[in-house]
């Protein structure tokens, strides 16, 4: 599975280029219709063809980048995938109640995190050592909240609540809670 950091960088580059192309088109259009002389008329066919091309690129970009999202296929085929390990975690009073045993995972294992909230809406996110986020989901009280993830490299991750749950929620960090080994 591609690392979510790479997807993020790739998408940022692709969408920045796309926006720049749009800005160049608008700039070209604005310059041409405002300049002095006879040639301040743009052929509508040319203009609308370029707009159509931009729409086509935009939609294609969505489809292509959609395919690069690493967890997409696993999410779509959830019903037929059996998790190698399942961790049950509950959250109450702004505190994660983790399993009694340390959460140790083998590389390439598929792991299901089943998280329930007993009071408020929280977030459940795994963060790398450099504080960047690996994944996150919302944890709603009274609902089933789970996420299936395949860890493709060793690492140590902290768990944090990624949703605002009041001033008490800012301290919801469990350091080095998940360990992925070879």
């Amino acid at each position, binding site marked *: 599975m591609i690392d979510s950091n790479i997807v993020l960088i790739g998408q940022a580059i692709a969408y920045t280029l796309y926006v720049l192309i749009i800005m160049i088109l608008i700039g070209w259009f604005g310059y041409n219709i405002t300049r002095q002389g006879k040639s301040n008329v743009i052929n509508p066919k040319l203009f609308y063809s370029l707009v159509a091309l931009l729409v086509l690129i935009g939609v294609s970009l969505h489809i292509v980048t959609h395919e690069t999202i690493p967890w997409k296929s696993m999410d779509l085929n959830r019903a037929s995938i059996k998790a190698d390990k399942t961790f049950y975690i509950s959250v109450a009073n702004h505190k994660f109640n983790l399993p009694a045993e340390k959460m140790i995972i083998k590389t390439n294992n598929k792991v299901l995190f089943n998280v329930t909230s007993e009071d408020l809406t929280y977030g459940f996110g795994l963060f790398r050592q450099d504080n960047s986020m690996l994944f996150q989901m919302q944890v709603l009280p009274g609902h089933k909240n789970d996420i299936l993830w395949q860890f493709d490299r060793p690492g140590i991750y902290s768990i944090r609540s990624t*949703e605002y749950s*009041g001033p*008490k929620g800012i301290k919801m960090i469990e350091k080095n809670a998940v360990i992925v080994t070879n």
Partner: protein
Amino acid sequence: MNFLQTLTNGEEGLFKSDTLTPMQKMTLRFVVVGLLYYGFVVVEGMIMRTYQVTPISLIPPNQYFAILTAHPLVGIFGSTYSIVFGAFLFLVPFLMKKPLWSIKLANWTCGLVGIGTFTFWFSGFLTHYAPLYTLYWPLPADFTQFSVWGGTFFIFGIALVMLGTVFFVINVFKTITYTPEDREKQPASALLSSALGISGLKNLFRKNKQEHLVSLPVAAIARGTVDTAFNAIVILFTGVLILVYMIA
């Protein structure tokens, strides 16, 4: 002339409030309320920025989150709504060359937006009510963290603003659709249809194009007002639900 005199009477006393028409007074009220809350928001924004760089000892974390909750609402409702409502309540009659349907209702809008904004801001300031604007249920009703009175007055303040917004929506559409007594009667449905772009849409498929009864800026204001109406309905309904839950 000192600063206060210049502020109230204008440069060299040139601002003469007694010469203003009721429309001018109404518009000016909205501008004053809007700018006042803009000042609030600017100060709050700077406090929050500073706090993120280094926590300020005078402001406890609960107060910081209360500011974080009220700040965008003061900006949107207290400042932006006031200035935009004032401008549109002036512009619609001006562009349609007829009086505003009700100046009294416009003044009520201004009062409700101004008082409502102060009510929810002050409630947050005093009680540190801070569910944030995301309002993830049941956080707004989490009374282990927040005071029930704080929440009640906060939501009541928002409800007042929304009531003012409903008055604005009524005023704009009534101004668009009514015909003054001294003029030839124009059907309200045709005016409304033009303002909402329905007649324009039909024109795309008609051979004999119908004339637009409403100018483009008025149509743009009318369509924006529809969004405001939907917002008001949803927020008012949600607010009342939360309020009932809190009181019950």
